[in-house]
């Protein structure tokens, strides 16, 4: 369900999943009333959310909404001024937990005088991967992000987009359980964006959790299982895309074999109207579409086309922001 701005001011009470009566892993991320102030400026305002393991979670919001601050809090790079949070079941900043987290910062640079392969080896070393795995891990990361042929070039010669690809490769080292991507496609061309989406889907398939921080709604719409919309440091809506976009939708029908205004008795499905050769039903519950088609057939109609249209994420996003 959509949880619009609900806030719980309680101690962290970690939800667990139950499989066959056994409690299993804690959520990937769980925050309760997480807050961050910089002097009088409130960057994050009592944020409560849960990101389940294995899902791709979109963290959406306009520029300056506090998204990157939340990421920094989750990674222990900044300290919260209020609230609590657990990442992979551990308190914020836990050093051993960071071994299981891959992170692509929004603004970053790698050591310009190292080659891409050396950067990856450095991070293998910092992750304390076994030395014999370094070469293979570096090669695999370069291959995944499409930089295999530039592996021995210095980072200083890389474009911003290539650095972002390398950053993604670094974030994928060590098969992380949780991958935090902060605006991962901001410097990428359309091909790069497509590649990133494929990488995210690949991560989901192997069971990793992806926390995708972005202001590019199309990106979220393509890959996210659930999203949270944040504005002025507060979550104003969370849920699956279907939940966020609402259960009501618009249905376009093309029906033959019936006269004018044949839908008079079907007002319970929504608001009926006509657009050129199409009949339009606004505000229909998606679960009622099959029933409506049955009714049309029962009236003797010939159903030629049924096209459900959802509200776009962008429209919903703007609506949410405008409402505040």
């Amino acid at each position: 369900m959509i949880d619009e701005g609900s806030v719980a001011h309680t101690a962290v009470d970690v939800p667990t999943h139950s499989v066959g009566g056994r409690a299993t892993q804690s959520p990937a991320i769980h925050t309760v009333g997480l807050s961050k102030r910089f002097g009088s400026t409130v960057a994050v305002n009592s944020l409560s959310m849960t990101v389940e393991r294995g899902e791709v979670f979109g963290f959406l919001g306009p520029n300056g909404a506090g998204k990157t601050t939340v990421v920094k809090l989750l990674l222990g790079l900044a300290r919260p001024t209020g609230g609590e949070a657990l990442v992979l079941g551990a308190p914020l900043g836990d050093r051993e937990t960071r071994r299981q987290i891959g992170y692509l910062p929004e603004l970053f640079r790698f050591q310009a005088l190292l080659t891409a392969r050396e950067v990856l080896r450095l991070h293998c070393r910092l992750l304390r991967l076994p030395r014999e795995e370094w070469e293979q891990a570096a090669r695999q990361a370069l291959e995944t992000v499409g930089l295999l042929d530039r592996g021995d070039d210095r980072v200083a010669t890389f474009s911003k987009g290539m650095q972002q690809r390398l950053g993604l490769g670094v974030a994928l080292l060590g098969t992380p359980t949780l991958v935090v991507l902060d605006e991962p496609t901001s410097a990428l061309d359309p091909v790069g964006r497509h590649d990133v989406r494929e990488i995210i889907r690949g991560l989901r398939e192997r069971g990793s959790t992806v926390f995708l921080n972005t202001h590019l709604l199309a990106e979220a719409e393509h890959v996210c299982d659930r999203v949270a919309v944040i504005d002025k440091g507060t979550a104003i809506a969370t849920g699956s895309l279907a939940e966020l976009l609402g259960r009501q939708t618009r249905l376009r029908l093309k029906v033959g074999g019936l006269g004018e205004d044949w839908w008079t008795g079907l007002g319970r499905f929504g608001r009926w109207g006509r657009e050129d050769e199409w009949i339009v039903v606004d505000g229909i519950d998606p679960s009622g579409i099959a029933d409506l088609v049955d009714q049309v057939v029962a009236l003797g109609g010939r159903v030629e086309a049924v096209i459900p249209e959802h509200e776009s994420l962008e429209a919903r996003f703007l609506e949410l922001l405008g409402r505040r």
Partner: protein
Amino acid sequence: MNPTFTIAALTIKESVRRRLLLAFVAITAVIVGLSAWGFDRLAHSHRITSGENHVAIPDALILFMFMFSFVLALSASAIASPAISSEIESGVLMTVVARPVRRIEVLLGKWLGLAVLLAGYAAFVCALEFVVVWWTSGFVPPSPVLVCVYLFAEGALLLTLSLFLSTRLPAIAAGVIGIAVFGAGWLAGVVGTIGTGLNIAALRTVGQVGRFLLPTDGLWHAAIFYLQSPSVIAEHITEGGQGSPFYTDTAPSWAYLLWVACWFLIVLVGAVASFERREL
């Protein structure tokens, strides 16, 4: 490998690739080469007596090493002041500290890498210059290794201070403050020396307090002591050389060296604490 050593090795590798070492080695070789000519002229001059030469060569060496102590200290400040702040600004550190490493390991790794570079440069300069002086004049300082150690320690103190400042201040501010503090410490030492020579207690106190607050000048004077043979020191005492900033007749006391070690530890612990608390 421990993350501290990983960061230290990275720091050294980056410095080498920046051609920092190459630049230092090249300019040092040129200056030492010129000094070889100067020491040769001085050692074989017919205008001064062998007795005067006995004092002139160590004095010239002290002046020369003073210049290098300055270069060493300023270099230490220059390489340490951007070590943390610039990497925070550019985002390089963001990818490192998000890894399972402690911030203390990152900071100590930076310090260790820079200190190794500094020690290498101090050893290179001292070895080269002492060989040149021995070759041209036959003079060998009584304790060349201790001279090198004290010059390195002087640079290492400034390196540590600049690294501390770098955890909070932009590189340029950290560098300027580090160099200004070093200059003030040296000046306080000169004032103290003048106070000793003229027997003015207030000025002498300035020197003593200065060496306590920032021990770089005290370490420089320790290096001076080990650059001079006992006979030269005796000669200076006879001539009333106590008023010269390039002269000392006493080795550093253990109590002072203990204070230097404490000073160093306090600043290093301060740097670690500051970096630990720094939000990125």
